[in-house]
């Protein structure tokens, strides 16, 4: 199976909490960058590290599982055509939908999330991200695209009843530093760092407050009031 990459596993040497409260959290990262290496993946990793750090600060261990959509792009389109996922894609879907928190990062193409990113979302069961704490991230050539997080990505996740945290992190090329250096470049890089840290804290808090693990739906559960002869008891 491709697309899985452990980027951080943070065992706590000194656990101040124990039991359910301190149980390790699983963070799923979805990155739909197309080039390799990609600035989208770079941002995704930074967001994951910040979230793990924030959780660690609260005494909570976390693991991170990254799904690079580039590596399962064909499986995603095959699923669109056949209506069922390949085994590899099914594993990716399982990782994402069963995580305690999701970091979703896409390049902004032509005013919105990339088509591959949306296609992956489209093959998920629409109920499978309900109540999921989500951190939204995006990359683009210029900061003029930054609001795409709020006018394109956020409504998508709100529609799915996920819970995106208030801070979305956009990284333009200039945020990674200017070629000519100088104080502007340092400010830009520092600004990105601050946004990442703030977003990581928000996602960590959302994960800790989430009751999602108690509301996961059994796909074989019959609806409330189900009757095999019809809900209205026709006779």
């Amino acid at each position, binding site marked *: 199976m491709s697309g899985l990459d452990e980027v951080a596993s943070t065992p706590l040497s000194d656990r101040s909490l124990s039991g359910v409260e301190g149980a390790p959290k699983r963070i799923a990262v979805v990155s739909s960058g197309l080039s390799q290496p990609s600035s989208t993946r770079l941002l995704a990793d930074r967001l994951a590290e910040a979230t793990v750090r924030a959780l660690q600060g609260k005494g909570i261990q976390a693991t991170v599982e990254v799904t690079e959509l580039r590596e399962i792009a064909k499986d995603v*389109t*095959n699923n*669109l*055509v*056949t*209506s*069922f996922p*390949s*085994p590899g894609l*099914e594993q990716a879907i399982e990782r994402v939908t069963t995580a305690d928190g999701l970091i979703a990062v896409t390049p902004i193409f032509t005013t919105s999330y990339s088509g591959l990113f949306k296609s992956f979302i489209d093959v998920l069961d629409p109920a499978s991200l309900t109540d999921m704490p989500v951190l939204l991230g995006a990359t683009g050539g210029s900061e003029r695209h930054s609001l795409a997080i709020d006018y394109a990505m956020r409504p998508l996740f709100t529609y799915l009843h996920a819970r995106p945290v208030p801070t979305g992190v956009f990284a333009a090329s200039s945020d990674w530093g200017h070629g000519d250096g100088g104080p502007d470049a340092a400010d830009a890089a520092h600004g990105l760092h601050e946004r990442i840290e703030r977003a990581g804290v928000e996602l960590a808090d959302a994960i800790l407050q989430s009751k999602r693990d108690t509301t996961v739906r059994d*796909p*074989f*559960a*019959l*609806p409330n009031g*189900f*009757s*095999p*002869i*019809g*809900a*209205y008891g*026709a*006779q």
Partner: protein
Amino acid sequence: MSDASGMQFGIFTVSDVTEDPTTKTTISEAERIKNLIAIAVHAEEVGLDVFALGEHHNPPFVSSSPTTTLAFIAAKTQRLLLSTATTLITTNDPVKIAEDFAMLQHVADGRVDLMMGRGNTGPVYPWFGKDIRQGIELALENYALLHRLWTEEFVDWSGRFRTPLQGFQSTPRPLDGVAPFVWHGSIRSPEIAEQAAYYGDGFFANNIFWPKEHYQRLIGYYRQRFEHYGHGTAAQAIVGLGGQFFARKNSQDAVNEFRPYFDNAPVYGHGPTLEEFSAQTPLTVGSPQEVIDRYAGMREAYGDYQRQLFLVDHAGLPLKIVLEQLDILGGEIVPALRKEFAKNRPADVPAGPTHASQVAKALAGELPVPGGKQAKKDEVHTGAAFGVKK
């Protein structure tokens, strides 16, 4: 039809009119309909047990009126069991289904059963004045009425989806007072598996478009609920499976010949490769022995079951090739599978249902009662006669 394997083997068709990608020609509806009949007749000639026909109400499909077609095939055959894949329990009036299939039972001397389905085309609901959002509810309520029309002489009915009935008797009555056996087909809904279990009916998993594991869960659920309702053990639940193959003497010839049809097939073409799809679904393209090995393994995945139907005539495959596939199926694959399935099959696992076996059950008072025998004791429908005329 009944041998030590207890299995019924046959074919099912969706009746698509699709361009042959190798010749870029498309046959007419008239030709396709005549071909369907030729395919069914040949299925009997090569020793298959079942021919099942789909119901669709939009091109490129031609089978909108299955009982008409099946009645004609009944007249052309002596032994073949005629079924559907599927009959739309959502958009058809259950009264008309009761009448059409009871009539077919009589003209076909009982060689009839049917499979309930909800259809695969969203717009079919509004075409018949129904709402797709109520698909499950329609399937549940309509079948509840259909079941009563076949098992009770006079029916008082008031439901949500059709005009009430007062003292209504559907006609003709089922042959020998025994309703046709019913399968419920579903590819994803536990509600339908539950419904099949509640009635002690059969459950059919199309088995073509999803990986095996998905159907394993659904069938496992149905078996468990069948036992829960007291119709028998989980192993005795009545299970049917779909499947798909293309065989030639030499494996590579099969792959080369089938690939253009696969690559352009309406349902999965232009997606995964033939190799990927074969690995992820029961599609088997190769030598007859490869097909035998793959399908002999199905009972390990799903438990001993009763009916195996194959899709052989879609995606623009010309009649000549389809008939050759039937020769291979009836001549080599099915005889070998019958032997395989007979091995170690527990004696208490029922054989595939026929009219004769249903009549015998009725006479013995062993036809399943909706909700199980316990439910019969608590029967609330006054005047309901879930048994049969003796």
